[in-house]
């Protein structure tokens, strides 16, 4: 019994070290979305380009699709823009934009200057749809499947590598 007690600290400590070691190898630093397999939330917001037109969830009709959260103040969004354009040009799947807490005119100007990969962009000035999606910054990209369910959310720049690793598999379903 006494010998058991003597070895116990050692055993606990070795376990701790192994556990900490395993954490070191874990690279993922994103907040997982709480909305996996949930349907895309309802909303009622104006279109970026036409402030009289009100968009709702039913306007996201072509599925599967990507929803991309972007803004003119978001530097990383500029980095991923070419890839989004590429996705559009190759007609891989439709991309809908969620313009997040932005200046309407600046956003329109940016799309005109750099190209518009979006079917349309939702103008979410107050960030309410973003909150319903659990968004906490830009850029973020969601994959919505044929049934309108959110399958994956990526925080950060989406590029070819991210696409292949995280998104492409859902396209084949």
């Amino acid at each position, binding site marked *: 019994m006494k010998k058991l007690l003597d070895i116990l600290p050692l055993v606990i*400590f070795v376990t701790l*070290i192994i556990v900490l*070691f395993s*954490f070191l190898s874990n690279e993922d630093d994103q907040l*997982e979305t709480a909305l996996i397999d949930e349907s895309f939330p309802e909303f009622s917001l104006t279109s970026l380009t036409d402030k009289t037109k009100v968009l709702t969830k039913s306007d996201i009709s072509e599925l599967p699709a990507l929803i991309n959260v972007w803004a003119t103040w978001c530097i990383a969004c500029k980095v991923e823009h070419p890839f989004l354009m590429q996705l559009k040009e190759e007609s891989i799947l439709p991309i809908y934009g969620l313009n997040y807490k932005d200046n309407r005119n600046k956003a329109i100007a940016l799309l005109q200057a750099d190209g518009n990969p979006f079917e349309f962009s939702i103008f979410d000035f107050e960030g309410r749809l973003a909150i319903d999606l659990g968004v906490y910054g830009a850029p973020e990209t969601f994959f919505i499947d044929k049934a309108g369910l959110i399958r994956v959310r990526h925080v950060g720049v989406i590029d070819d590598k991210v696409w292949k690793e995280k998104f492409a598999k859902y396209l084949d379903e």
Partner: protein
Amino acid sequence: MIPELGHITLIAYLVLCLVGGILPLAAIFFNKAALEMPIKRVTSLLFSLITFSFLILIYSFLVDDFSVAYVAQNSNINLPFYFKFAATWGAHEGSLILWILAMNAWLISFIFLTKCKNTDFLNTVFSISCQVMFAFTLFTLLTSNPFERILPIPPLNGADLNPSLQDIAFTIHPPLLYFGYSGLLIPFAIAVAAMLFNTDTKEWASYSRPWTLLSCSFLTLGIALGSWWAYYELGWGGWWFWDPVENAAFVPWLLSVALFHSLITSQSKGVFGKWSILLSILAFSTSLLGTFLVRSGILTSVHAFALDPERGLFILGILAFFIVGSLIIYSIKDLNQDNSGTYELNSKEFGFLLNNLLLVILAISILFGTIFPLIYEAITDGKQISVGAPYFEIILFPFALALGLLQGIALYLSWGSSSSFSFIQRVFLESISVFGLILLILYILFDNLYLTSFITIFLACWIAAGTLQVSKKRNINYWSFLKKRLAVTFAHVGMAILVLGVGVVSSYSLEKELILAPGDSFEFGDQIVSFESVEDTLGPNYFSKSANISFKDTQNDTNVITEKRTYVPSGQLTTEAGIIMEPFQDLYISMGDNLEADIWSFKVQIKPFIRWIWLGALLIAIGSMLAGIKQIRRA
């Protein structure tokens, strides 16, 4: 050229540590007297080398040598010189040099001041310490070298020191904290030596006790300063957040407190010897663990830039080597440590046992809670949770309650067993005074009574009364009696004051978010807060918007400035809070966002009794420092 000197000195230091870590042990265990070293001289040489290296680094900062990468990353031409000095330990690489220097400072103090005459024992402590210093220096040179150069074209200016670190408290907080952390090296090395030589419990405990006390004192000061700095620098008015970094310092503190209480018992009565050894190992290991957790990046939350996992691996390796190594010795060796002293449940020994039980389990719980999010993510395959202040406060409360109750009667306990009659009499007297106090507080607080706050205030009175009371039976001059127990009086009364501060500020703070234009006033608590004006001001390396706020109540009318600073080199923003310190409360205001024109959002708070928290901590640090010094002098 000069940075190279620092680099070379560090390498020389590394080699000497390696030699020092091996030869004396080889001399003892292979019986080769020829391998013995004059450890006093070698320690002095080591200390000179690391100090020299450190001074070179400081020099590089003071002369703006941006060819040194570390200086370029953490300094700037416009940085005031006292911050250039402090920037030396402003980031990972430089702070490691400080860590190593601190370990060496403790070692040299121990070698020269200890009363231990056993050369084998001393040489072993020296050797083990050298091994640890070697490991850290190797880590520094291989992965975190502060002397790396940017050549052939050094940058013209540096990136600047992180603005939240550009503060006076910051110049003192890390050194104090590192001295606290690293001081636990000595008790660790002593414990290992005690295991190897099966040293008599009372003897090795007497060697270890002063250094544990002094480390605890530095840790107390370091943590208290960190809390104070966070309070006024970060702008949100909080003083403890249960952040992983804070917990990483709190856990070793708890264990060092448990340790010196255990060592008192070991030294006086020769019991708990084996436990004290284990605790010495654990205390130092949590110190190393804290270093690992904070520098490896595994505990930064989602969305922080990843710190270096490779460095984390190295530190984990150091941790594994020393702790697993010493625990293996602990498991295998037949330690003849425990004298079968008998003691009753109402004895000092049992009191210390309870004290240790509570402190150690609390420490383990906090440590576990800190790393739990990672464990949870692993066992639920990806789900994430947060473990923060609400959880830790719920867990802490019962422990603090039990410890506080114990602390109030601790000084009445005697070794072996306490005379029941005088014990009960004292507790009775104490209870009367405390309950009299409580009735009055109840009367005053009748409108606003919070249960947890009430309990905490009661605890504070209980602890203070228990520390300051003397039995009426004895005919002793009270002041000479106190003088003999000066250290413990400071420490325990300090704890009472700290607990009082926490109890009051936790429940009686007021806060509000305001939106004001210049000229607006608002009634808040018993104050009228007025936003008088806002103007642009310029600092040495920043420009800011300074808001002039006045607080008026029936007695005072004081102005204070709160600022929103933009630091020029990095573009980073900081909020400088405006704080008015009154004896029994702080008036606190911080600027939020500029909404339009000159309209700003503010967060205004009244924090009653908050200074008492740091006053209490200071008294605790003084108490443990006094105790440590007293133990060093004792023959």
